[in-house]
């Protein structure tokens, strides 16, 4: 029930004891009703220094990531603002539970992204996000604009941090023509 990476994100290594597992399950139960999963995805041709949808491929790592791919998918996925409010609220009554909810939410988000990527034909690379390698965080607004992320309530602050906080933006390479 609790997502695969949840315990790891909670900082737990080795064999977890039953208190920690109970905490993760409590966190999961509190979180589920507050989540509103939404995503936007567009497919675009790779055109050398950028994607056709006006996303610049800055640095060399993203270009290497997309090597051999004629097209790419730009993805933005979020769990919504409800998760943030729950984490804020829980910090006032139990930091331990808040940390657990934060971790479970991140793990759920990864699972959600895996689901979305799994459903697109021809995806041939893992997710590559602004901030990875030498792909600068400054690329963030371009990904969000390309996907019209505001339609799912996602935007980024001046600091380029995305809000709501449980949001992922990424580029994936597509091999076969689709």
């Amino acid at each position, binding site marked *: 029930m609790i997502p695969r990476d949840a315990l790891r994100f*909670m*900082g*737990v*290594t*080795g064999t977890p004891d039953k*208190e*920690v597992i109970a*905490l993760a399950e409590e966190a999961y139960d509190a979180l589920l009703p507050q989540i*509103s999963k*939404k995503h936007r995805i567009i*497919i675009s041709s790779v055109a050398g220094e950028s994607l056709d949808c006006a996303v610049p491929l800055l640095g060399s790592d993203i270009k290497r990531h997309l090597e051999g791919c004629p097209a790419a998918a730009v993805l933005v996925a979020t769990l*919504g*603002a*409800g998760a*943030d*409010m729950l*984490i*804020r*609220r829980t*910090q*006032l*009554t*139990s*930091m*331990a539970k*808040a*940390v*657990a909810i*934060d971790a479970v939410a991140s793990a759920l988000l990864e699972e959600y992204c895996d689901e979305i990527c799994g459903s697109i034909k021809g995806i041939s690379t893992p997710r590559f996000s602004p*901030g990875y390698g030498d792909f600068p*965080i400054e690329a963030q607004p371009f990904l969000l604009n390309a996907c019209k992320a*505001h339609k*799912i*309530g996602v*935007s980024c*602050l*001046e*600091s*380029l*941090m995305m*809000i*709501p*906080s449980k949001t992922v933006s990424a580029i994936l390479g597509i091999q076969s023509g689709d």
Partner: protein
Amino acid sequence: MNFFSDKILFIDGAMGTMLGKTEGLPEILNVTEPDRIKKIHTAYLDSGANIITANTFGANRLKLEGSGYSVEQIVAAGVQNAHLCVSGRKNTYTSLDIGPLGTLLAPMGTLSFDEAYDIFAQTIRAAGDRTDFISVETMTDTYELKAAVLAAKENSSLPVIATFSLDENGKMLCGADIISVVSMLEGLRADALGLNCGLGPKQFAALYGTLKEYCSIPTALLPNAGMPYISGGETVYDTAAEEFAQYMKEFALGGVRLLGGCCGTTPEHIRRMTELCEGITPAPVTQKNHTVVSSYGKSVIFGEKPLIVGERINPTGKKKLKEALKAKDIDYILREGILQTEAGADILDVNVGLPEIDEKEMMERAVFHLQSILPTPLQLDSSSPAVLERSMRIYNGKPMINSVNGKEESMRAVFPLVQKYGGVVVALTLDESGIPETAQGRAAIAEKIIARAQTYGIPKKDIVVDTLTLTVSSDSEAPVKTLDALKTVSEKLGVKTILGVSNVSFGIPQREKVNRSFLTLALCSGLSCAILNPLSEDMMSSVFAFNVLRGYDKDCREYVKRYSLDESVREKTGAEDTLKEIIISGLKAAAYAKTKELLAGMEPLEIINEHIIPALDIVGKGFEDKKVFLPGLLSSAETAQNAFEALKEGAAAQNDGEKIILATVKGDIHDIGKNIVKLLLANYGYSIIDLGRDVPPEDIAAAAKKENVKLVGLSALMTTTVVSMEETIKALKASGHKCRVMVGGAVLTPEYADMIGADFYARDAMSAVAIARECFDVF
């Protein structure tokens, strides 16, 4: 007189769809390619649209920044273009178009409500009332929607059409349901309201029923041309003009007054719609009588079942709350809010009236923070109109207001506020002559208040009458009078009612016994809403039992859920363990009692040094050795907190630990790490000044100087906000105040910490504790 109440009007379709791909912002075309815009306006007018919306959807200073054009230029051109197109045509109007700002308001983001208001106001003033209406559209957040509508109402005299967007579940992106938004918009005096974008007419049809059921003003629907799908690399919408028009015809027959189209619609869609709707007479707009209060996302409807208003956030007779208010301990207020909500409160009363503090400032803070963590609607409680005004202004939703009474002065001060901001107002049945002796007397005052409210356009459904609970020990007839008045007001005047019951037992022993019975009697006399302490089992059990006996609790489900003993959950009690062991094991529930036990034979300082600190040190070491993980560390820390609570109650207020400032720097809104450090440091006796998140460097420097703080902890999560850390350290140095800085956050390294001039680098939560200890030993 509502402009839209006797007409059906057709609004234009999409501008964006017709423009196609544009170089840069589409609003710039108002100046660079006015003919292209006018051509689209004309096409819609030729298709039968009565209202064209100017091309000003994104014409605000946030979006236009760096474009080379000012808001005033773009808006003036947009309004002019629209104006030229309707010129000479009959029964046509123009509307200024206001769309979302593209960023989230605080607390989710960093844009304040006041700033957002200002940005909208600028665009509206730039249009100078040169259009016929103002359309606020495509809003997905109630707070932003409020800022825009308020800006329109305060900076123009034009009718305002407010439409918002829902997802397939019928919710706004911020989480709001239809009823919450409708209540808020009606309170803000929108002239018409409805839905636009997001969905097609088929989905709107499923949602319109609820909208109509709760809305007492003309409605507007502007759906997309169906749902989008990708075809040949392009976005295409699945509802063609004919089908679209059929749906719109049904809507017109069903009472919708403003009909138009959003994304994907074309002049063809509008033409077919106006053709099919030809000759339909407008169905009357009817008054709905639901009494509703709302938060950003939750609506609470006054039905048959009594509502519970939590009374705990009120300093009268509450020593701890008074101390918290004086110390500006917002967290204390927030915890009271959470506890009451979890205990079953439907609405929370918020009163921070204390002569020693700045009530207006504290009320604003309390409301802002409460509504950022809880979906529970609030009852704004103050005897100062200025305090009510500010809190009503920044409230996200439609609040309850406590209170107005029959005195001229009160009605003149409070009713204009309710008229402007909306709200459900508690009306006390007293006036210049005092509190009437008889039930008839109180009912007469209620009538007077209701009649006066009407003159402000405040309907009876937004008044909740309080027939005043007086003390039985000073007048044995008092409860009977209150209840008779309650019955009269409820039955004869048909208005909702509220009472605070605890007054009745003032001065007599075992007050709860009388309070709970009085509550039951009041509920039987038709009480809609009770102000009480939701943490009191006596009071809550009375409500739950009443609901069972009245048939409001179907199959006794709620009652059984609350009162059946759950055998399966048996927490390890820890009664046999020492306090030290209890903290190490993280047995939160046991710590308080155990500490009280120890206090019988030990001094607080002994308990701290022999049990609490050693326990925390053992757990801390375990964390460092990777035998204990973060959840365990925090459980122990929270258990220690409970122990400290017990100690604090015994001793005089001792907040004399070394002061440490903690803050998440400007531009950054992640604060879990900082809050973990706060918890741990507090356990070790440090006095924490938490400045929150997104804190400007100057504020941190000023606070350090003012409070003479020797250690400042800064947190940042991103490479982009680490820059603010550097600026903050510079600001601290420049202030001349001598102090040390520790920094932490996932993105930091010891090298970077060094580079920006920090004194310490905190690798993890426990490191912060080690640093504090080192720091204050040296100092």
